[in-house]
């Protein structure tokens, strides 16, 4: 019997646990689904006329934004769970076992990806009902889903790290919602980058959410995907590596 740490095995086991925990608490899915749909509806009501008057078709543009928002919400629960595991003593316990150090965080990402899949599918259906069309057919849709899943996996790792800083699960959740709003709003999600005041444009243009949305929209609209892809992948790799390195240094106990 080998009890040496094995990344694959440990991630699988802990991932299974994380999934079991959220499926037994389906109410948590509600917030990840309902909030984005509500926001989608609200932004549509509020901004569609204005943006149409300026030549933007919100029906085609918003779904990517809403999906990214939903992925954020999904990932934020990672913060809650990381803090909760620490509080209940699960984190120190697992750390004192021959379990691979990166496994807990990766397991979080796996679990959030399963929730993410459901969110994305539901939101795409809502988007189609509201008038969005995939110009590139099924490949575009699949690519879109894949991008969303990678985004939620990387964001979960970041949120998990934030969760490790919170003293209670509630505090961790609040802390996790801090980066979400600026990143989402100061992107090309709601308005074109040019609308921002000059000094913000650089940030708005290059930040990871904008790059993700660029790629997603290209996959819907059929525009050129190569350039957006490289920008996006670059961000995902950099963030993924940084988060992984930081995760190894997190203290399991206070």
């Amino acid at each position: 019997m080998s009890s040496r740490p094995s990344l694959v095995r440990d991630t699988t086991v802990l991932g299974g646990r994380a999934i079991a925990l959220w499926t037994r608490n389906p109410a948590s899915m509600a917030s990840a689904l309902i909030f984005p749909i509500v926001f989608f509806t609200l932004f549509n009501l509020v901004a569609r006329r204005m943006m149409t008057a300026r030549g933007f078709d919100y029906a085609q543009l918003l779904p990517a934004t809403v999906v990214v928002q939903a992925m954020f919400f999904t990932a934020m629960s990672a913060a809650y769970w990381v803090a909760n595991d620490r509080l209940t003593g699960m984190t120190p316990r697992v750390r004192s076992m021959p379990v691979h150090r990166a496994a807990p965080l990766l397991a979080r990402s796996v679990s959030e990806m399963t929730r993410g899949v459901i969110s994305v599918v539901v939101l795409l259906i809502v988007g189609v009902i509201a008038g969005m069309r995939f110009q590139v057919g099924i490949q575009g849709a699949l690519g879109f889903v894949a991008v969303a899943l990678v985004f939620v996996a990387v964001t979960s790792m970041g949120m998990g790290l934030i969760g490790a800083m919170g003293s209670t699960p509630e505090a961790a959740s609040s802390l996790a919602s801090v980066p979400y709003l600026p990143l989402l709003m100061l992107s090309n999600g709601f308005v074109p980058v040019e609308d921002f005041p000059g000094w913000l444009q650089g940030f708005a243009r290059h930040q990871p959410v904008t790059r993700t949305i660029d790629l997603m929209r290209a996959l819907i609209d059929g525009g050129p995907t190569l350039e957006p892809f490289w920008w996006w992948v670059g961000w995902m790799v950099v963030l993924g590596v940084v988060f992984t390195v930081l995760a190894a240094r997190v203290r399991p106990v206070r």
Partner: protein
Amino acid sequence: MASDDGEGLAIEVDGLVKRFGDVEAIAGLSFEVRRGEILGLLGPNGAGKTTTVNVLSTLIEPDAGTVRVDGFDVVAESHRVRQAISLTGQFAAVDAQLSGHENLVLFARLRGLPKGEAAARSTELLADFGLTDAADRRVGEYSGGMRRRLDIACSLVVEPRVLFLDEPTTGLDPRSRSELWQVVRRLRAGGITIVLTTQYLEEADLLADRIVVIDEGRSVAAGTAAELKQATGGTTCVVSIVEAGRLDEAEQLAAPFGEVAVDPEQGELRVASESAIDTLPEVIGALRGAGITIAEAGIRQPTLDEVFLALTDRSGAAA
């Protein structure tokens, strides 16, 4: 260095220091644990017991000193240490939304057991700990005692060589506590070395083979419960007299021989001194000389309470 079976020390701690910022949580702690014994780590809150356990279980690294568990260094060979130990923390770290069986399988698989064996091991442990009926119920519905038993069972999915129990009976009702004590005794009978931290003196007294008393990050005493009681340097002789009205007089008579305390309800005189066996005849002589009738006389060992208070009393031990 490989671990010796049945020989050698299970744990060696030498000059352990751990700081958190400016605070020295552990300020030079040294002790040893022999194989197969139960060591009690006793101390008030904030003394550093849990920090010590965290270092021993490789959760945090020492700032100075060497710590070897099962023969392996906790820093350099932490992975080997983790294979030899199990930790049961202060809070029952099991998932309330999963069933008892699911929790056990989870930990078994994390320890490398394949699915089938994990399930079998879980069934075995559930039987051992009297949880078979509750196996498929969510742990959230368990009583405190059941949850604790499951918690310990989860630590035993693979039998560790060293088991850490951090305040295992805190918050349990008396019956669950004594059930748990039986479990601990059974484990020791199976040859596992156990490090037990507790605030309950009675628990340390009953279970531990040896006790290390920690205060402010240092060891202030080590030994068996009996040794500690003796070493506090005080024993008390107790004399109860018949003529309750002459208690004050008796107090005056006994005063030269040690520190006298009076219990009017029991009609008792307690004299604490360096050596009760010498003081007792002197007190008896003095009282009889004054014509006071003695009902009972004897020597009493200090309780672990008194030992503890004396050892951890920051203003110095009472003579």
